[in-house]
């Protein structure tokens, strides 16, 4: 245990004399910025969830007063009965909050910030101040988006994809300030992502610890690196599009205004050129963190490390040439549609490589079903369902039928909730001790997992059936159509499951907050893992290491015959290991 003593000594030697404001508010420490992102995006996750609950009430019990809906103003829900124009705001803002302010910052803002310097072995990001600006730009965007819920004529109401001309013309949508605030907020988010991405990329390329070669990087870092490249190149396109949309709204320009020669379809191309890489921004970091957790929970090296890396890169590359599959019914040339169909179907190959590798890792492993592992296994299972339904809609003729139905809603929730969010619950539980120095409750974590898993499937699986029956998404009251009336009991079932799913999250919420103060104090390496972050005390100190450790091997050396324990940390020097070459002499 000499390494423990050594790091404990150096960590204590690192004196931290920053003021409270510089330490916790305008902090440049990557770990604090990660934690700031965590709290803010968990808040937006709750906001997005509350919006979804209101939608589910209306779909199950159309026209009936919502319990507690009396507090909403007359313009939204008079007497608690949700108005159609409020319903479309709910749809729009649920999608917007979940994609831009919950899942994306939870995956990238939290874990790219927190994990990259800890896992590659460096003191902080390459540009700590730019990193701080990235958080505050995101925060400003979030405030603007939140404020748009309370403006007189209501929030944006063109769906989270903001299709023009509905979004561009106030006289079409009926909302002016809400639409404009949406555009402004998205510009802030774009700026935040670009600043974050350039930081992550530079840090990973230049600041790895001695011996941390590219193919010794944990898969979480690989996936965050590739995600950062996607964000760097996709978000400027969204920002540009949002700027043009904003100009259409406030300067009366005509980019997306067909009567004056503008092209509404142009918005769809710009949006989905960003939007499809965005889909991979929302899933790749989850895949990476799940890979780390599954190797740990299986006590085996990850199966096919190199093929995992190449699959990440392949998915990211293909992600740029498939955006047209969101637009099969927009009137595009069928030949073009076929090429988008083929490129989309090819993505199934690297995705399947990853899935089989996860299963290969678990196969005959000495499985430890800790809470992060349960979530990681659920991620793989749910991602398979979401991935398979994705193949349905990649095929143009099938998509013609299911486009804009609840089948799509089911699919995207299987990858975003069943995929990303399960991975996030796992990741939060897994790295919580390194963030806060305490462990979350294991039994309550398991209760939360099982309730979430059950109610999640009860909520979203029947949506496939509704979609096949032809129920349109974003519709205020499906029961007004005769052919959809027989499915009303199913909608009630979905809604009750959704309410229970939301209620189950209360367990996680309480576990999270209770453990902050009352959780079991965490040991340095509670999961017996190999990553460099576990060579630090819990919580990790400011500046991480006084002197960064040297790295001697890859991150997945579990059950190695070379040592007595069933794990072999990356920084542990065995007698046979050579000291890695460094590029410059230590300055302190």
């Amino acid at each position, binding site marked *: 245990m000499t390494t423990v003593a050594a790091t404990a000594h150096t960590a204590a030697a690192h004196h931290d004399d920053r003021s409270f404001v510089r330490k916790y508010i305008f902090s440049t420490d990557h770990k604090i910025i990660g934690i700031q992102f965590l709290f803010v995006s968990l808040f937006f996750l709750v906001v997005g969830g509350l919006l979804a609950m209101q939608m589910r009430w209306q779909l199950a019990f159309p026209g009936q007063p919502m319990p507690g809906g009396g507090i909403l103003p007359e313009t939204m829900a008079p007497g608690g009965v949700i108005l159609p124009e409020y319903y479309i705001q709910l749809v729009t803002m649920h999608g917007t909050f979940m994609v831009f302010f919950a899942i994306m910052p939870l995956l990238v803002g939290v874990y790219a910030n927190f994990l990259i310097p800890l896992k590659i072995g*460096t*003191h902080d990001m*390459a*540009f700590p101040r*730019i990193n701080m600006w990235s958080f505050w730009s995101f925060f400003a965007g979030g405030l603007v988006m939140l404020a748009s819920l309370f403006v007189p004529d209501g929030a944006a109401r063109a769906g989270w994809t903001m299709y023009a001309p509905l979004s561009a013309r106030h006289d079409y949508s009926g909302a002016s300030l809400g639409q404009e605030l949406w555009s402004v907020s998205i510009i802030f988010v774009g700026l935040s992502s*670009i600043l974050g*991405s*350039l*930081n992550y*990329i*530079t840090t990973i*390329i*230049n*600041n*790895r*610890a*001695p*011996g*941390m*070669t590219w193919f010794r990087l944990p898969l979480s870092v690989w996936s965050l690196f590739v995600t950062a490249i996607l964000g*760097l*190149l*996709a*978000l*400027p*396109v969204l*920002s*540009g*599009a949002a*700027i*043009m949309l904003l*100009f259409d709204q406030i*300067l*009366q*320009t*005509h*980019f997306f*205004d067909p009567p*004056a*020669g*503008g*092209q509404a379809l*142009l918005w769809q191309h*710009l949006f989905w050129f960003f939007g499809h890489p965005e889909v991979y921004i929302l899933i790749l970091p989850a895949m990476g963190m799940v890979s780390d957790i599954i190797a740990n929970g299986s006590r085996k090296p990850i199966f096919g490390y190199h093929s995992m890396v190449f699959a990440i890169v392949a998915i990211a590359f293909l992600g740029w040439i498939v955006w047209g599959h969101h637009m099969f019914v927009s009137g595009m040339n069928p030949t073009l549609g076929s090429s988008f169909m083929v490129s989309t179907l090819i993505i199934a190959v690297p995705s399947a490589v990853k899935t089989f590798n996860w299963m290969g890792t678990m196969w005959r492993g000495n499985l430890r079903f800790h809470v992060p592992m349960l979530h990681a296994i659920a991620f793989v299972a749910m991602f398979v369902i979401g991935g398979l339904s994705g193949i349905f809609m990649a095929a143009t003729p099938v998509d013609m039928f299911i486009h804009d139905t609840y089948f799509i809603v089911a699919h995207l929730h299987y990858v975003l909730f069943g995929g990303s969010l399960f991975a996030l619950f796992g990741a939060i539980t897994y790295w919580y001790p390194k963030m806060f120095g305490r462990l979350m409750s294991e039994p309550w974590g398991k209760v939360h997992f099982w309730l979430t898993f059950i109610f999640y499937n009860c909520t979203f699986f029947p949506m496939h059936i509704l979609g096949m029956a032809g129920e349109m998404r974003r519709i205020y009251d499906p029961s007004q159509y005769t052919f959809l009336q027989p499915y009303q009991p199913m909608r009630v079932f979905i809604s009750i499951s959704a309410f229970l799913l939301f209620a189950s999250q209360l367990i996680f919420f309480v576990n999270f907050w209770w453990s902050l103060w009352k959780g079991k104090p965490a040991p340095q390496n509670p999961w017996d893992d190999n990553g460099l972050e576990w060579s630090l005390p819990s919580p990790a100190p400011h500046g991480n290491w006084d*002197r*960064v450790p040297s*790295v001697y091997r890859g991150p997945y050396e579990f059950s190695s015959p070379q040592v007595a324990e069933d794990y072999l940390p990356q920084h542990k020097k065995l007698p046979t290991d050579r000291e*890695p*070459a*460094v*590029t*410059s*002499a*230590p*300055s*302190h």
Partner: protein
Amino acid sequence: MTHAAATVDQMRPPYPAERGLDVYNTKLGMWVFLASEVMFFAALIGTYVILRFGAPGEWARPGVVLNIKITAFNTFLLICSSVSMVKAYAAIQDGDPKKMRFWLLMTILGGAMFVGIQVYEYLHLVERGFLPSGVREGSELAELVAKGTLPAATMGLYGSTFFTMTGFHGFHVTCGVISMAYLYVTKALPGKYTKQDYRGIETVGLYWHFVDLVWIILFTIVYLI
């Protein structure tokens, strides 16, 4: 890396690290940032190309609305400021901070003049009735539209794309001028740039050349064709 031995210490990450790209972080960060800038301008320029080719009718002939001569001079000015930027970079590489300050100041002046002329151009255009939304009613340009010199159907798109693209370019030039002025006051004047460490000059120079390059493209496609 022509400037090898003497510069190695300051222009590398200041702690032991695995070999990266052998460039210091700020320079690498700027290259990465410029990649995102390429995508941003690609979105704006791509939009312009698509709208212009899909426009419902003729596009306005070059030179009727926009004053090519003034902007050609402005383009020349910006290219000169790129040259002076290189001179500043070469001077500090040779270890001549005085010469570097002079050329950096010339670059700042060139950039500021470019923005000034662009503001003058905008004011003049608005006065003649050219707006982001198209042509103002009752203005000089509205008469040209009525006479058929300018196409009525596409003036809205012309205004939208012109002001958005050149406006965002002007915003980038302004940011560059402010950054260079900041570096001039906080780093160049106190003599913090040396033959061994001139990271700020090189990094802001990369940005400046990028902004210049974008302008050459914009000048060609917006003003000349």
